[in-house]
């Protein structure tokens, strides 16, 4: 199987080369995306079959890379699970990208990097030594950076890409240091030997912190999230879907791999810390999402939220495992893993749907959309499914993982540390607030974009996007519904991971299609509820037919007797979020300026809202300035004479030798 994956990697890299040559022709571009989608579909099936068949771990050592190390590859359950998480959405995204070729003029810059990006994410998952892992990680960052820059003519894109590059590099440095601390002085960077090494408590803490910084910044956990929304929004739509839906999961994979697998047992406090960071990310991410009017930015901020929810599950699992609550660790880890899978599906759906919407209307600004449900019903259906799934509403998949996360929080074992127990209700509040805000956010996003009346001529004149752009989101919506109705499917995929990480299986909690937590009697049976709702609905419809036979009449809107034909009288996205902006305003430095002319003064009144991410100002600007200053200083080194270069090289060599002598 591993050989097949390596073959697929080769095929994807070859596609990248082909992309260099064939980017000018739409048909070649289409087939390249098509092949990439097929490869992804194959890899997803491969991962799923590895998980369900229960095959043994495979390893492979390729004679490339460092001469004494080679390139270690390994396919275990964790890798296989994330192979599904990455490639199931990636296949839909590839299919969408094939249809999107004609809408995206920057193909020559996207086509070569796209397959390389997909290949690099796959390589991260199967890398089994620190060198290969970091190389693949960096390739993933660079390929996605190139893709973000596809529309480099816009200055916003350039600044977003610059920030992304800075943070991604810092993240890789952190991961490099984390793995370096784990390897210690032994110099053996294969994961197998890292796993055997038991770091000292202080070193273990350092590893956890560095891994959290490195992988957490890539995943978009607060406070390292600020690069994410601008970068994800600036990228071309299929790339946004890949970055937001998929790459953040690769980052979670890195976190789980290092913290659960490589770093050995960590004290429970780390788990609690990660869960709290997750809770804060969940709430703050959504509060920002609520205020965005660019749909892609809104979705990117909501990625911060969902990664936070997954981090709650992963952190709790770490904490429970450390305090010996292995059954609860299984519940929490299942919740985290399933949320990663679910989010990959519905976030890709929403990004692809937004791409189709923007292709049809020419804008992704909420305030210029409206009334699209009548003109593009199929796309509206897909987006409605995505909105319900991400808002955590039954019967979709988002609710399953949120339900499990709630259960993990509520289970609160009596034996656990008192401070952990006291923290759990707070975590519950954060998660509940996030879930409720997600509903507000996506009622707003869907309602303003698809319902009401068109707010701009483009929206009024829009035609439905072509079928090639609509069926990939619809297929993802069907997957969300299926995983929501039959949670057993997702749990069948995540259970082997639990066993591989030394946590007992969770499948014992399944009774037929329903989840039933044996020890406390709480259950969720989506199919049962759906069937009951279907029957009640049927009864209601039949009864209405009998009791209320008159057909509808159409008339002007009532609007309390004063209907106004001007679409500008509708609620806008900004007005919809105004109540929450007022309630939570201090958290995000909102400035509302009302400019009211004095009586008899003949000018228009004005109203402006501006918001900044306070974390952005406090944290990022200093870092970005420091990097810029250092880069400016170092620039001199690029223009030295050959003599100076040689002496520099010699100096470094001497320094290293001295270090070796001291070390020995």
């Amino acid at each position, binding site marked *: 199987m591993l050989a097949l994956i390596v073959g697929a990697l080769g095929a994807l890299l070859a596609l990248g080369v082909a992309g260099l040559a064939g980017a000018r022709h739409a048909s070649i571009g289409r087939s390249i995306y098509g092949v990439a989608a097929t490869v992804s579909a194959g890899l997803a099936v491969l991962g799923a079959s590895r998980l369900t068949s229960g095959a043994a771990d495979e390893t492979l050592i390729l004679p490339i890379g460092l001469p004494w190390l080679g390139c270690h590859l390994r396919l275990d359950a964790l890798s296989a699970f994330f192979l599904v998480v990455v490639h199931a959405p990636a296949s839909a995204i590839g299919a969408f990208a094939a249809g999107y070729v004609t809408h995206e003029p920057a193909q020559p810059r996207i086509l070569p990097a796209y397959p390389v990006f997909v290949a690099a994410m796959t390589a991260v998952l199967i890398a089994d030594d620190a060198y290969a892992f970091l190389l693949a990680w960096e390739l993933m960052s660079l390929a996605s950076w190139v893709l973000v820059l596809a529309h480099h003519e816009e200055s916003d894109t350039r600044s977003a890409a610059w920030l992304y590059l800075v943070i991604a590099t810092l993240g890789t440095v952190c991961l490099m240091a984390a793995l370096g601390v784990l390897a210690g002085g032994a110099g053996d960077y294969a994961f197998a030997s890292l796993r055997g090494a038991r770091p000292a408590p202080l070193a273990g803490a350092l590893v956890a912190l560095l891994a959290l910084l490195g992988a957490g910044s890539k995943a978009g956990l607060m406070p390292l999230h600020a690069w994410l929304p601008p970068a994800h929004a600036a990228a071309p739509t299929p790339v946004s879907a890949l970055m937001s839906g998929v790459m953040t999961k690769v980052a979670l994979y890195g976190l789980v791999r290092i913290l659960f697998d490589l770093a050995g047992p960590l004290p429970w406090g780390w788990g609690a810390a990660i869960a709290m960071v997750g809770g804060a990310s969940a709430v703050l991410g959504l509060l920002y999402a609520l205020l965005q009017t660019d749909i892609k930015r809104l979705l990117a901020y909501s990625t911060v939220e969902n990664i936070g929810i997954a981090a709650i599950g992963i952190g709790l699992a770490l904490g429970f495992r450390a305090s010996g609550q292995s059954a609860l660790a299984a519940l929490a880890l299942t919740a985290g893993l399933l949320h990663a899978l679910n989010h990959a599906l519905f976030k890709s759906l929403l990004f692809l749907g937004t791409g189709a919407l923007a292709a049809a209307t020419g804008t992704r600004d909420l305030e210029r959309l409206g009334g699209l*449900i009548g003109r593009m*019903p199929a796309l*509206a259906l897909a987006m*409605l499914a995505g909105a*319900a799934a991400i808002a*955590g509403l*039954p019967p979709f998949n988002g*609710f399953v993982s949120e339900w499990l996360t*709630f259960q993990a929080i*509520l289970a609160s074992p009596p034996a656990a540390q*008192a401070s952990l*127990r006291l923290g*759990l*209700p*707070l975590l*519950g*509040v954060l998660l*509940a*607030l996030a879930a*409720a*805000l997600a509903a*507000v956010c996506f*009622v*707003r996003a869907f*309602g303003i974009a698809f*319902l*009401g009346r068109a707010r701009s001529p483009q929206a009024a004149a829009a035609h439905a996007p072509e079928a090639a752009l609509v069926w990939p989101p619809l297929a993802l919506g069907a997957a969300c519904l299926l995983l929501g109705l039959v949670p057993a499917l997702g749990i069948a995929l995540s259970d082997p991971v639990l066993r591989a990480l030394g946590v007992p299986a969770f499948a014992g909690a399944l009774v037929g299609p*329903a989840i039933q937590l044996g020890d*406390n*009697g*709480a*259950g*969720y049976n989506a199919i*049962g509820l759906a069937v009951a*709702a279907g029957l*009640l*609905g049927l009864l*209601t419809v039949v009864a*209405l037919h009998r*009791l*209320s036979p*008159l057909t*509808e*009449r*159409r*008339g*002007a*809107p*009532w*609007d*309390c007797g004063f209907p106004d034909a001007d679409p500008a*009288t*509708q*609620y806008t996205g900004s*007005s919809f*979020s*105004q*109540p*929450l902006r007022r*309630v939570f305003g201090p958290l995000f430095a909102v400035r509302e300026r009302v400019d009211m002319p004095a009586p008899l003064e003949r000018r228009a009144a004005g109203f402006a809202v501006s918001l900044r991410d306070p974390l952005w100002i406090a944290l990022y600007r200093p870092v970005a300035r420091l990097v810029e200053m250092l880069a400016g200083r170092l620039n001199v080194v690029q223009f030295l004479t050959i003599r100076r270069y040689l002496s520099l090289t010699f100096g470094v060599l001497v320094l290293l030798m001295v270090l070796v002598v001291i070390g020995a």
Partner: protein
Amino acid sequence: MSGVLFQLVQFALVLALAPLLTGIVRKVKARLNGRIGASPLQPYRDLARLLRKQPVAAEGASPLFFASPLAAFVILWLAAGLVPSFTTDLALAGSADLIALVALLAAARFATALGGLDVGTAFGGIGASRDMMLAALAEPAMLMVIVTLALVAGSTSLLRIVGFVVGGGVGVEISMSLALIALLMVAIAENGRIPIDNPATHLELTMVHEAMVLEYSGRQLALIEGAQMLKLLLYLSLVGAVFAPWTIAFEDTPDALMVGLIGYAGKLALGAVGLGLFEVTIAKMRVFRATEFLGGALLLGLLAAIFRLIAETV
């Protein structure tokens, strides 16, 4: 088998009782206001009238406009049928715990809010926006109540909680009383009652829920009103089942079931009178004061959970 039968009975029962409950609340309020008031049966007549009338929809209304009242009604009917009322022997009782129940309520609200936005009028938007804001503030408070109950009974399953309370697992406890107050405050907010919202208002700018459903008429409006009545019934049943579960039947004997039914009717009547009393004694708040009200509910819930945790640790 009996579980399926009782489940069907319960679905019929909640649907039959919901309008009466609303009627009693209105009657109580009218009497306390010094009016005679309409008969408690008036809501049935209102619903029948709405069903007979020809619905008028705005020209731009999409299929979602018509689907949303149906979805909200069916979801709330389902949810109301899941709360143990007179017996615990319900086929679907294990299918949804308290968290799933809250999610069902959220799904109904999601559908209604989308329906409010569909026609594209200012009132629909203002109602949807405010309703969602109130829900976003009420849901964390509701969760804190659930946390407390889960800490007390060791489960989020309603059957377990009911069984635990009946089994004498809970004495008079400060955390349970705080949770009860928090739950009542959430129930008031979620049902759009005074002081958060006024179900009988005629002043457009003060409306929340009514503004959201302003465009509906005929059978769609009947569905929405029915859904609201079911929601009120659901919250009262929930309070009754969790905090006064002693009448609920645990065995399928005719006596126990009889006690269960009478007790349920009694609890609902008591709840309706209590709600009417409460509503006439206070005035409606400004919309943004609701934050303080619901923040108070959240704080009470949090205190309840923390008291419980400390009580266990000590």
